[in-house]
């Protein structure tokens, strides 16, 4: 009994040590968040904070203080907030999909959100000034993010309708139909790219590699209700996902309303990935790698994988974003490139060390 106790503590597998892990991650995240505010190509660091504060409160007319305020509060702060949200949302979505499909290699793209969002984004970039000018006219500079969000959600909704038989949503059908719908969307995306001119093609390519450079307070404001919604949904997802690991019949035997749980999981994933793609384009790897990292130290219980994954995902995106804007300053690298450059080696290391690509991690 004692050594059992010891092992569980060492691997963060009981309630108390799970809280410890969350605490660790939260502290780490806070440090990284603060660093992301203090680091940037303008050379403005935390020394500027008091002056920026006084400028924000209207206590000074010093133009350099006004510049500090602009950089810290209007550029870096919303950017960091968005980055944290995207990281958390993608990590939760990844863990949810892996739990729902009972497959550690599942990623949020499986339910068609990303490919649907990409199609809508590409259409907006290529036809925004011609066939879709009404859309750009209505939504102005937010035409692209809104189109991406709508496209992603519509694709997932279509998929759920296709994969439903009466009241039941079959996971296997969902998976196969998801692959088909993604292929269809990719074909359409490819066709539109084929019609695009060189400048549009460059926009498309950059969008598909993800970036936080378009961050603004209005985007943050648009994201806040979603972030809150996700936080509220989380505790309701972890138990059903735990029960689902042995299959849907087993989850039902354990008292889970499986159809309801599946729909909540898919809706939460579609909303979070849709929102993340809308504000930052496509950022890969977070959804795949973060849940694995958490499972490695804390076990696969979704009561820890979901919240801890959210914090770790947020921190990782902020680190990647700091690198993205510093490595080639004053220019910026796409976030997706940095993320993959960090994520792929870590993932490879995990897989090789564990010696099992599917079951072992």
């Amino acid at each position: 009994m004692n050594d059992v106790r010891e092992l569980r503590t060492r691997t963060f597998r009981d309630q108390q040590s799970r809280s410890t892990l969350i605490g660790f991650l939260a502290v780490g995240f806070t440090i990284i968040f603060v660093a992301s505010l203090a680091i940037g190509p303008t050379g403005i660091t935390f020394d500027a904070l008091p002056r920026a504060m006084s400028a924000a409160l209207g206590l000074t007319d010093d133009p350099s203080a006004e510049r500090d305020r602009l950089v810290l509060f209007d550029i870096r702060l919303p950017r960091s907030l968005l980055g944290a949200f995207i990281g958390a949302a993608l990590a939760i979505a990844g863990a949810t999909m892996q739990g729902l499909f009972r497959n550690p290699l599942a990623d949020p793209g499986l339910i068609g959100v990303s490919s649907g969002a990409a199609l809508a984004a590409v259409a907006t970039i290529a036809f925004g000034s011609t066939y879709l000018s009404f859309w750009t006219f209505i939504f102005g500079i937010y035409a692209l993010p809104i189109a991406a969000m709508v496209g992603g959600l519509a694709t997932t909704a279509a998929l759920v309708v296709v994969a439903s038989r009466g009241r039941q949503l079959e996971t296997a059908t969902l998976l196969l139909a998801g692959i088909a719908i993604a292929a269809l969307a990719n074909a359409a995306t490819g066709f539109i790219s084929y019609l695009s001119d060189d400048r549009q093609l460059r926009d498309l390519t950059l969008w598909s590699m993800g970036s936080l450079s378009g961050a603004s307070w209005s985007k943050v404001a648009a994201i806040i209700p979603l972030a809150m919604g996700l936080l509220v949904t989380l505790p309701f997802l972890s138990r059903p996902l735990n029960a689902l690991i042995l299959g849907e019949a087993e989850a039902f035997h354990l008292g889970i309303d499986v159809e309801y749980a599946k729909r909540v999981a898919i809706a939460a994933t579609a909303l979070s990935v849709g929102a993340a793609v809308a504000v930052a384009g496509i950022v890969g790897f977070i959804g795949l790698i973060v849940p694995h990292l958490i499972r490695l130290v804390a076990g696969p219980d979704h009561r820890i994988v979901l919240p801890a994954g959210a914090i770790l995902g947020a921190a990782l995106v902020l680190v990647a974003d700091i690198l993205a804007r510093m490595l080639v300053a004053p220019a910026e690298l796409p976030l997706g490139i940095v993320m993959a450059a960090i994520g792929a080696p870590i993932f490879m290391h995990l897989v090789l060390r564990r010696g099992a690509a599917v079951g072992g991690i």
Partner: protein
Amino acid sequence: MLQARSVTIVRGARKILDDVSVCLRPGRLTALIGPNGAGKSTLLRVMSGELRPTSGQMMLDGNDVSEMSASNLANRRAVVPQVAQTAFPFTVLEIVLLGTSVPGFNLIESDGVQFAYAALEEIGLKGFETRRYDQLSGGEKQSVHIARALCQLSVAARSTEASYALLLDEPTASLDFAHQRAVMRCLRRQADLGRAILLVAHDLNLAAAIADEIILLQNGKIVAEGSAQHVLRADVLSRVYACDLSVMQSNPSSPPWVLPMSLDRSVSGAAAE
């Protein structure tokens, strides 16, 4: 307690279950036997509430099972399926603890762990708590599932005075003799605690040794039901299983013993040549 009333399940043109009525009673262990494809597992899925009958009714203490919520059902019955797989590295303890996580149990985690340890000890898996479930043998996995179900029932039974059902789909299929015996002893104890138990069994002798009542299914219909002596008769079994079977009994009070007649070395020897 748990009662199937004229349950029929139709898939396409085929009747998988045809007008089957079964009644499980507290404290009694019912074994469900029959050849492959007779509808045993389907009947178990209907009894668990997982599958809705095409016609007929499933009742739990006077309530229609198809109108009960998943969590209400899980508060009254536990199910042990044939072995389930998972790709995630859960420990044995974490799998058994799933039995404490039924909505409405509202158990604090440390209490749940006590129940889980007790269930593991009962099934003979003491010391397996931190082993990885996905690295266990098939028989050990089966035992883990039984422990999970026992845990679920003992948590459910801690607060309310009601009867509880335990449904098992071939729980001893990949167990060696010693572990089969441990599981059977454990099921007997559960019956003595007042649980209504339904056991899908392939091993007729095991069923004969442990069950209070045996139900013999063939092509979705009940062919015979009652005590082991009544159901396990050579003529009936030979017809249903389409194979020459003889039934022996050393004395009138001991359970009957079923033996296949043509299973000797000459069969496999002839095939080898």
